């Protein structure tokens, strides 16, 4: 893929190195030439000094043939403007903007931009590690609005049905692995000993999930 990254701070440099190592064609843009020192030596992509929403800079970076663009500079407004150019003017198929302010992240999402709020994500994960360290988190969805956990069915739920571990729009059993085979259960499916469960929960409902599993608060 041809990927453009705006902002060569810690996030941008790391992302650029990861993608470059994976064999993608990467162009990274930053207004400060000194920022590129953060890239590691394996980085094979191109570097452009300039403002991320400058049309000439974006065209030099190949925005008209880009498969993806990530705008991760430290300025929320810059990231929003760059993302809107990529989506509306150049129809880049995958566009992600880093937005620090959670309120703005939500607002920009309403305007059709995919946003990652590091503030929301990190605080939700840290909250999770503090209040729920014994539940194994395998995935977070969106800006950590939904968490996916994998664990063995607790003894108290063996013989009970999936409906006992379901709260509409809050907690849902996504899949069960039984004797090495996975399936998607229905509400009436019964849990058997040693079932491994994949459970999705709204971040705000983790307390309720813990209560249903018999875990301490």
């Amino acid at each position, binding site marked *: 893929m041809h990927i453009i990254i705006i902002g060569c701070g810690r996030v941008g440099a790391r992302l650029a190195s990861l993608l470059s190592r994976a064999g993608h064609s990467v162009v990274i843009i930053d207004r400060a030439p000194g920022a590129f020192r953060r890239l590691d030596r394996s980085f094979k992509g191109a570097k452009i000094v300039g403002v991320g929403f400058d049309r*000439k800079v974006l065209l030099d970076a190949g925005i008209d043939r880009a498969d993806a663009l990530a705008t991760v500079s430290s300025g929320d*407004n810059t990231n929003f403007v760059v993302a809107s*150019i990529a989506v509306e003017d150049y129809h880049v198929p995958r566009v992600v903007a880093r937005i620090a302010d959670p*309120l703005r992240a939500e607002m920009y999402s309403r305007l059709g931009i995919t946003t990652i709020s590091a503030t929301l994500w990190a605080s939700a994960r840290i909250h999770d590690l503090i209040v729920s360290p014994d539940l194994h988190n395998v995935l977070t969805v969106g800006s950590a609005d939904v968490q996916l956990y994998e664990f063995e069915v607790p003894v108290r739920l063996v013989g009970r049905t999936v409906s006992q571990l379901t709260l509409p729009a809050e907690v849902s059993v996504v899949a069960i692995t039984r004797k090495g085979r996975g399936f998607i259960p229905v509400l009436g499916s019964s849990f058997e000993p040693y079932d491994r469960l994949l459970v999705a929960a709204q971040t705000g409902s983790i307390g309720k999930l813990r209560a249903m599993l018999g875990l301490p608060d």
Partner: protein
Amino acid sequence: MPQLRVLIVGAGKLGRQTAKLLINAGNHVILVDKDPAALHEMKDILGDGAVSGDGCEPTVLEKAGIGQAQVVIAATGHDEDNLVVAELARRIFDVPRVIARVNRPENEWLFTPQRGVDVAFSPATLVAKMVEEVVDRGASPS
């Protein structure tokens, strides 16, 4: 002319001067700026209309009364900020008329109705055009 409710974001020289003109013409003006010092000299004529806060934040705009504004002027010294103000004014708050300042002439192409800007004005381009006219007149006396 009927009295308008105008919200200006950015209390630099341009924002302040525009606010004064509009107030003198009998309009109701709200001036928003991050820097309380920039608003200080305007306190007397603006009264409650001086709002300190980041005009790129929806909550600040809402509190400043953007919902009742007929006109929003994005007049900060940063084009990305003016574009965000325009987009929020149009797409979130449904403001009927949005005017935005272009700081760097290279960015003029971004100030379109699709991005919420009805009228863009670029002080640098305006002044350059005026100077060009003066120079032309000097070169070819008619």
